């Protein structure tokens, strides 16, 4: 691949993968908790929580980037506090890109997890109960294993979506080579530069291939999920 891509492009690819993987992994436990809550619990204000979880899907990413800047900017109260007391700075840093990607792809994961949990036949849980399994035991021995392919499909979709994130990243953490310049930002930069068409085309082709691969993998996992829960 070294012959196909330049060093800077490879750097963008590696950065994209790093940001996407870390963001998916960090989001996963929260997405699972949210998915479980929405799938199993009945509480007042559930539709509001549902709406907030799904908000990043419909909000313009640029607006999300701006919001993050307002909250986590070094002159914003929370951002200043984090920098002073914990030495954490999100703006102009790849960790900020992780944060933006995590928030924007959170709904993909919650949705997949919730659907998998809801697809489980509730009578299986009753059977497990008569066999001596407590609620936590049933979560570990039944609900999570049955939802696992669905959880993975959600994670893969979220990963693919992270790779494509642009608006929030460029607004929140700018376009710094080797720090926040992921593939979409590299494509944007190439288009802006004279004679960058070839690079833009290469990177776009790469993006398409990666996205397609991700979606195929997600669909494969979703099929496994249907088999695991006895729906295929």
């Amino acid at each position, binding site marked *: 691949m070294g012959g196909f891509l330049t060093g800077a492009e490879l750097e963008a690819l590696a950065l994209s993968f790093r940001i996407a993987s870390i963001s998916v992994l960090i989001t996963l436990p929260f997405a699972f908790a949210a998915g479980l809550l929405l799938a199993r619990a009945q509480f007042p204000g559930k539709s509001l929580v549902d709406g907030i979880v799904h908000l990043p899907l419909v909000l313009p990413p640029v607006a999300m980037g701006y919001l993050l800047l307002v909250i986590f900017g070094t002159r914003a109260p929370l951002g200043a506090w984090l920098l002073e007391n914990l030495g954490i700075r999100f703006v102009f840093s790849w960790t900020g890109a992780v944060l933006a990607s995590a928030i924007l792809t959170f709904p993909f994961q919650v949705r997949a997890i919730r659907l998998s949990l809801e697809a489980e036949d509730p009578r299986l849980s*009753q059977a497990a109960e*008569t*066999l001596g399994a407590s609620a936590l035991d049933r979560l570990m021995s039944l609900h999570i294993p*049955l939802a696992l392919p669905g959880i993975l499909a959600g994670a893969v979709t979220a990963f693919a979506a992270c790779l494509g994130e642009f608006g929030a990243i460029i607004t929140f953490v700018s376009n710094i080579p080797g720090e926040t310049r992921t593939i979409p930002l590299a494509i944007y930069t190439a288009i802006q530069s004279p004679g960058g068409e070839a690079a833009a085309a290469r990177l776009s082709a790469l993006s398409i291939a990666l996205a397609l691969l991700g979606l195929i993998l997600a669909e494969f996992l979703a099929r496994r999920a249907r088999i695991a829960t006895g729906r295929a």
Partner: protein
Amino acid sequence: MTGHIAISTQLGAFALDAAFELPDSDVTALFGPSGAGKSTIVHAIAGLMMPAKGQITIGGETLLDTERNISVPARQRRLGVVFQDSRLFPHLSVRGNLLYGWRRAAAPCGADEVDRVTRLLGLENFLERKPRTLSGGERSRVALGRALLMGPRALLLDEPLTGLDATRKGEILPYLERIRDEEKLPILYVSHAIDEITRFADRIVVLNAGRVVAEGSLFDVTARLDLASGQAMFPGTILDATVAAHDRPFGLTELAIGGERLVVPAMTRNIGDKIRIRIDAQDVMLALSRPSDVSANNILPAIIEEMRAHDETAMDVKLRLGETRLLARVTRRSAERLGLAVEGDVFAIIKAVTVGGRDGA
């Protein structure tokens, strides 16, 4: 020891108010049409549904007493439930399913006991397979094994054969019979199929519209005329018989019932074997004198014990043959023409016998 079940609850327009006994050593059949409340009772016993009022005592342990605020959670009731739809865990192998309750038991049985149950149910060659690759009958066997290996204080079998075709039923019944004979457990067998009950149970609780309408030994309850007439639930009599002799040249087998003999088509059973048979009331004709010129082989002297009109056409007649009771259904016109009366002597002509009883057919 005898367990007691009393459950009363209201589910929408349906009122359930049922109480019956569950003896420790017998198979009790819970019988009734669909919608009678059988599954609700099973769910309440298993602890998956909380009745408004109820007492459940099984094997000397109180699992529910709404008056004393006792309700043992489902997972601590130690009841081996086999649901109609098996409910195997699709992500686990047969072995994983079998051992699910075993792993969670407070005092799990030893590995040799696991092997014994696996062999008892004929599952030793399926252990690594996933439930979706099993037939319906195999799935039922795994569900039975899973319930047995959890170390249950009782078995609740909720229509375990419903949904299986006749071949698969024939495949499972011998395993159920082995469990009945080898495991010393109280068993509640829920079914709406009188054939299964004939073959499997000792006691019967008849449920209709949420209420127990009869409870007792299979023979007594099935010989009751008020049930036969009112709801046509039992169109016949269930009897225990012993294989007495074979008539090989004619292809016949003689069965002993009390002091009487019945001739049926040849059976591949040994002399002395106990079997259970059913005689449909429609298949019993009555005569005032012993007919000598009919083709029927089975003509038995009997005394009329009870008579009751079934509807405007038919009359149900309960006959006493020594210790045995037999139901006959004749037309009311025939009953009048023959002058049938209680304590009158008649001859019962039995046209057909359904063999499908205990210990196989």
